[in-house]
């Protein structure tokens, strides 16, 4: 099974990759190949369209604000399930693509226990065991998987209520709302983490590369695997070379 998925992913990465390129500048590492980037932004476009058209029929004031974007209420209702299907289909490929790096491990449990120090930027670099994705990223990924399942199971009865019956619609409606709210929170946090919160991250999904500094800061174990070098040593050496004040953690004294 895993072998088949690997073979499929390899072929897809090669085929789609042939249409694009990833330019690696000096001191950079390839983070996301063309295939991953294309999938990510296809998922993102459909997801955002589905989110907006879905929340358009969520409450009266959102209805007024958002339905005009899609040409009015009836077209919003017509388009929403199709946007969602687009999201689910592309995300299915992303699941296959990321199954391996997203697998939950004991390191992720460890990471979750120290999430407070992550949120408060306590350490200049992440713990040495953080690999390609950290626990928070994996949590977001699996939350999307779970929500996609809930969206599908509750969405079809709401799309074809005659076939599925009233009770399924009544229950599905509530589950659909909960999944949408979870996705909204996740999306806001994701948007922030991918842009403002972590300078140098956005280019991972656009140009496909990250700086080496970025890699040993946020994903030391991946840095070790990708370069064969020790992230901590490279970080210390770079720190000594740099002309900046010796320890940026001094900030805690400046509250």
């Amino acid at each position, binding site marked *: 099974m895993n072998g088949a998925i690997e073979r499929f992913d390899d072929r897809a990465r090669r085929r789609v990759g042939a249409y694009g390129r990833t330019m690696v500048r000096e001191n950079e590492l390839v983070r996301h190949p063309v295939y991953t980037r294309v999938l990510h932004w296809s998922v993102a476009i459909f997801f955002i369209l589905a989110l907006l058209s879905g929340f358009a029929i969520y409450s009266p004031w959102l209805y007024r604000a958002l339905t005009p974007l899609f040409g009015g209420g009836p077209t919003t209702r017509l388009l929403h399930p199709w946007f969602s299907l687009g999201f689910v289909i592309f995300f299915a490929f992303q699941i296959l693509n990321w199954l391996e790096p997203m697998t939950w491990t004991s390191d992720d449990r460890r990471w979750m226990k120290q999430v407070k120090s992550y949120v408060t930027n306590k350490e200049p670099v992440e713990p040495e065991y953080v690999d390609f994705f950290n626990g928070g990223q994996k949590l977001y990924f699996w939350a999307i998987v779970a929500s996609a399942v809930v969206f599908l199971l509750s969405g079809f009865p709401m799309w074809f209520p005659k076939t599925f019956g009233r009770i399924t619609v009544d229950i599905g409606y509530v589950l659909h709302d909960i999944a949408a*709210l979870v996705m909204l929170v996740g999306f806001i946090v994701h948007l922030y983490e991918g842009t403002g919160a972590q300078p140098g991250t956005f280019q991972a999904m656009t140009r496909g590369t990250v700086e080496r500094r970025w890699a040993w800061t946020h994903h030391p174990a991946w840095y070790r695997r990708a370069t064969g070098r020790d992230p901590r040593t490279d970080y210390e050496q770079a720190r000594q070379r740099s002309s900046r004040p010796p320890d940026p953690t001094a900030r805690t004294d400046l509250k």
Partner: protein
Amino acid sequence: MPSGTLQIKAISAHSGPIPGQGVQREEDVCKYIDVTTCIGCKACEVACVEWNDMPFQQTTFDNTYQTMPATAWNYWNLIKFNEHQRDDGSLMWLMRKDQCMHCEDPGCLRACPADGAIVQYTNGIVDFQQENCIGCQYCVSGCPFDIPKFNSSTKKVYKCTLCSDRVGQGLEPACIKACPTGCLKFGTKTDMRALADARAQQLREHSGFANAGVYDPPSVGGTHVIYVLHDATKPEQYGGLPANPVIPPTYTIWKRAAKPIGLLLALLAAPVAFFHYVMEGPKEPAP
């Protein structure tokens, strides 16, 4: 008899004030249906189809006298023919005119997410406005009486209007006008309720229907269509009239309270992220 322009009391999924609210006070209207004197002639069915200019369609014959198994998007008024066995073994018809009940607290309107697709007038009539309907069919699952019906080619939902177009002009609904036995009457809610109570009492005291009573279910705030039943303790035997019709909690507690609170909490993530940036700053690659 109410007449003049219909004033709106409630609008589905509407934010902001209701235009003209409270300008005019009106009597609540009510359709009175005495099930005990209905002869099943279907004059009301024909009158409804005629007045509303509805195209006819093929239907299913299911070995009853009923025109079709259930009301349809273009057939809003249906006499349900129920064969009932009395205690002594003899048979009787329980004929019930099935249509929208024009609930005082309408589940359809509560469920509807589209601004102005369902309105309730000050006289109590609940009316669908197809030009605003988005075809989501939430009203179908919100209605305890299984009334709104979807037309898959127009992608809109339809139901009995209680002839709001006639009532607004001071006329009675078409079905009332057509009924030959006088089992249908139309007037103010107060008058019709009094008439129904009197008729039920008559049935109890003089016709041997000890359980005769009026169907005006308080669980939906009362209805603007009321029935006099031979046996008000068993409304289900009249073609599935629910004894205690309830709007699913999905469209009451969940939609009214949980959804807005949930959305507010979810959107809180945005200011939290913003102030995280302001207070903790970005996590730069080190050094």
